[in-house]
C-alpha cells in the first residue's frame, strides 16, 4: 500500500505547492570535455558578459516560445510577459536562493545538452532542432522537472493579476474565460509590498510602550 504523501487540492485542502517548489532532479551526467567549460552565464570579460546576456535572453525566450508557442486566437508568450517575469523571479531575494539558482542552472544544463548532442550552443541551433532537443530533454527526469518549473513560471505569467506586469491586457484571463475575484490587488497589498508592510505592522504594535525599559524608539 502506498503511503506517499500528496496534497489534497481543494478549497479545504488547498496547499498547492508554492512557486518555486523544490527540485527533485538535478542534471548529474556531464561529459568530461563539457565539464571544464567556463560557466555558461558567468564570465569576467565585459565582452563575454554582453554576449552571455544576449545568449541567455535568447535561450529563455526560445524555451518559453517552445513551451507556449503562438497559436491562433490565443495569447502568445509575449502577451504573458513571461520573459521579464522570469527575470524578476530569479532576482527576487525573498525567494529561496537555491530555487532561483535551480531555474538558472536549468538553462546551463539545456546548453550543455545541446553541446553534447550537437557540439553547438542551444541558441545556434535552428528552431526545429531546438524543439527536437527540448523534446528529448523533457524525457529526462531532470529535464522534465526543470521544464515543468518553467511552465509554472509561464502559468503564473499567463494567469496572475496584470498588476505584476504579466497577463498583459488580461489576455490570459480573456482567452480562458476566467473571471477574476474582487477586490483585485492594489499596489499596497500585492506581493511583495504586503510583506514590506508586514514589517510596518510590527512598528504599530504596542510592544515598546509595554516593555519596562522603554528605551528603543518607535520605528515609524
Amino acid at each position, binding site marked *: *500500500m*502506498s*503511503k*506517499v*504523501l*500528496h496534497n*489534497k*487540492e*481543494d*478549497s*479545504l*485542502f*488547498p*496547499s*498547492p*505547492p*508554492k*512557486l518555486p517548489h*523544490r527540485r527533485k532532479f538535478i542534471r548529474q551526467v556531464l561529459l568530461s570535455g563539457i565539464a571544464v567549460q567556463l560557466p555558461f552565464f558567468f564570465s569576467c570579460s565585459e565582452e563575454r558578459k554582453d554576449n552571455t546576456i544576449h545568449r541567455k535572453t535568447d535561450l529563455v525566450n526560445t524555451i518559453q516560445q*517552445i513551451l*507556449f*508557442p503562438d497559436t491562433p486566437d*490565443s495569447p502568445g508568450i509575449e502577451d504573458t510577459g513571461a520573459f521579464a517575469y522570469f527575470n524578476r523571479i530569479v532576482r527576487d531575494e525573498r*525567494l*529561496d536562493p537555491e530555487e532561483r539558482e535551480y531555474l538558472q542552472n536549468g538553462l546551463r544544463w539545456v546548453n550543455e545538452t545541446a553541446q553534447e548532442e550537437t557540439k553547438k550552443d542551444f541558441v545556434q541551433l535552428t528552431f526545429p532542432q531546438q524543439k527536437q532537443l527540448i523534446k528529448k530533454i*523533457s524525457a529526462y527526469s531532470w529535464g522534465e522537472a526543470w*521544464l515543468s518549473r518553467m*511552465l509554472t513560471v509561464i*502559468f*503564473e505569467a499567463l*494567469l*496572475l*493579476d496584470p498588476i505584476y506586469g504579466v497577463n498583459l491586457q488580461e489576455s*490570459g*484571463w480573456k482567452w*480562458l*474565460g*476566467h*473571471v477574476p*475575484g*474582487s*477586490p*483585485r*490587488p492594489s499596489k*499596497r*497589498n*500585492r*506581493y511583495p509590498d504586503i*510583506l514590506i508592510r*508586514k*514589517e510596518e*505592522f*510590527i512598528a504599530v*504594535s*504596542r*510592544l515598546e510602550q*509595554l*516593555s*519596562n*525599559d522603554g528605551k528603543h524608539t518607535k520605528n515609524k
Partner: protein
Amino acid sequence: MEKTLKQQWDVCIVGSGAGAGPVIYELSKAGFKVLVLEKGPWFRTGDFSKDEMVAARRSVYTPRLQDERHVLEYTNEEGNLEAKSTYDSGRDFWNGNCVGGSSNFMSGYFQRLKPQDFRLLSEYGAIEGANVVDWPISYEDLEPYYTKVEQIVGVSGRLIDHPFQEPRSTDDFPYPPLAENVVSSWLDKAAESLGYPLVPLPRAILSQPSGERHACVYSNYCGSYGCSSDAKGSARVALIHKALKTGNCTLIPNAKVYHLETNGKQKIVRAWFYDAKGQKQKAEAGIFVVAAQAVETSRLLLMSKNPGFPDGLANHNGQVGKNLIFSAGGTGGGDFFLAELPEKEAKQLSVPGLFVNRSLHQYYEYRDEKTGQRMKGGTVDFLFEHANPVSKAMHRKWDDEGNLRYGAALKEDLKNYFRKVRKLKFEIFNDWLPTDGCFVRLDPKVKDKWGDPVARIRIDYHPHDLEVGEFLAGQAKKIMEATGAKNIYANVSGSPPPNLQAGGCRFGHDAETSVLDPDCKAHSVDNLYITDGSFMPTGGSVTYTWTIYANAFRVAEKIIERLRK
C-alpha cells in the same frame, strides 16, 4: 537584551486563531486583563484581496520555508521510514500565521460532531492498532457551545430531517442558507433517486449582515483567501475585534513564544517570546492558554523543559505530541461538459461564486457488507473546483500517460479545460484513527530561524481509515453518476491534510494516559489550558473548527469560573 512587559495579566494566550478566539473574547468581555501573543503579523480586512499570488503562490500568510519548516517522517514506497523537511519537499505544513490564524483562510464548512463521536470506543469497539477512547465529555455537554458559535461567530444553514441529524437546542440556524448554484438541486435529485437526502452544508459565513460585518458577496475565492466583507467567521473578525473594543485585551503580533517557564513547581510564571526585532521578551500572567494549532502547541510544550518537566511541560507521562490526528478520507470529482447541457443549464452551472453546500451524511454509520459489523462511516462534502487559475492550470501539466504537456497541445488542453468544463468535486471525511505511529516530537537537528528545534511529525495512518474512505468514495461516486457528471474519479489516501490537524494533547480523566483534564487544563500544571484542537482524542468525521470554537467557549467559561473564585 531581555525585557519584561510591565503589566501583569490575568491570562496570557499563545496564538490568536480559532482555538484562542473564544477565550480572548469571553475573558475580555468578563473584565479580565488578557494578553495575546501571536507569532504572525496583523493583517487587517483591507489588506486582503483576491490575489492568487499572495494567497497561494508565495509565502505571505505563512512563513517562508527557508526560515521555518517542519520535518515529516513517513513510510516510503519501499516500506522504509523516510524523513524530509518541508523545505526540501516543497510540501508546506503551515496554514495561517497571523492574527486570527488559519481561521482567516478557512472555507468555513461547518459541521458538528455527532453524539457517537464522543464515545467511539463504546459505540463501535476497539480496533487493533488504534488508540480509540471515549471522550470525557458528551455531546450534550458541548451542545450549548455549538449553539453559541452559531450565534456569535455566525453560522448559516438550513435544517432538514435526516437520520443523523445531531440533537439541537434551537430550532434553526440564526442565519438563512447562502445562495446556491443550480448544481445543488441536481445533487439533491441524484441523492433522492438513490433513496436518501443530502444535507445542506452549514457555513461559518454570514448570509445577512450583522453588526459591523457585511453579508457574503459570493466572491468565488473563499478558501485560502482572507474575506473582504468580514462575512467569514474568522476569530479575528468575529471575536478578537470585539475583545479589543472592551479595552481589556492587548494583542502583540510578531511575538513568537518559545518557552513557558515554571516556578520550579507546577505553575507557569512567564512566557518567553521573540519580538519582531528578534529580541527576547517575557510576559507574566496568572493563567496561560496555548492555542498555536495542534502541531505547534505540542512543539511549544516539548520545548518548554523546566525543573520537574525534563521532557517538556505537562509531559509527565510522555503523552505530549502523541495521538496526533488529521482528517482521513480523500477527494474526488467529475466533469460537466457545458456543450452537452441545455443552454440554460450550462449558463446556470457556469455562474461563479454561488455555493454547492451539500453533504452526504447517510453513511455516518453503516454495516460492513462482508462481516455485517456496524461501522463508523463519515461524511462527503460536494463543492466546485477552486477558481484559482494558476492552480487549475498546474493540474493540466501532465497528460494521461504522465508525460509533460507543453506546446500547442498544452494550449489546446487549457482552453478546453477552462472554457468547456465545470468540475464538481467531493471531499471525504472519516476518522483518522489515533495510532502510536502518528505523533509530534522535536527534531534533533533541524532548527528554525530563531535557532529553536522544529516539529518533526511522524505520519502514519491505520488501514481501517482507507477502508472506510473507500466505502464513502463509492457512495459519492454513485451520486456523481446520478447527476450526469463524467470522468468521475476518487482518490482515497493516507495523506494528511495539514490544515485539518488535531490531537497531541488529548484530554481525559486519567492523568496517566492523557495530557489534559476534562476542562482542558493540563493534569500536571496548575495554570495551563490548551484550547485548540490538541485536546481531541478522536476527531469525528467532519472538519474540526466548529468543535474547536465550541470547546474553547466551554473552557473559557471554566477559566472565568476559576478566576472569579
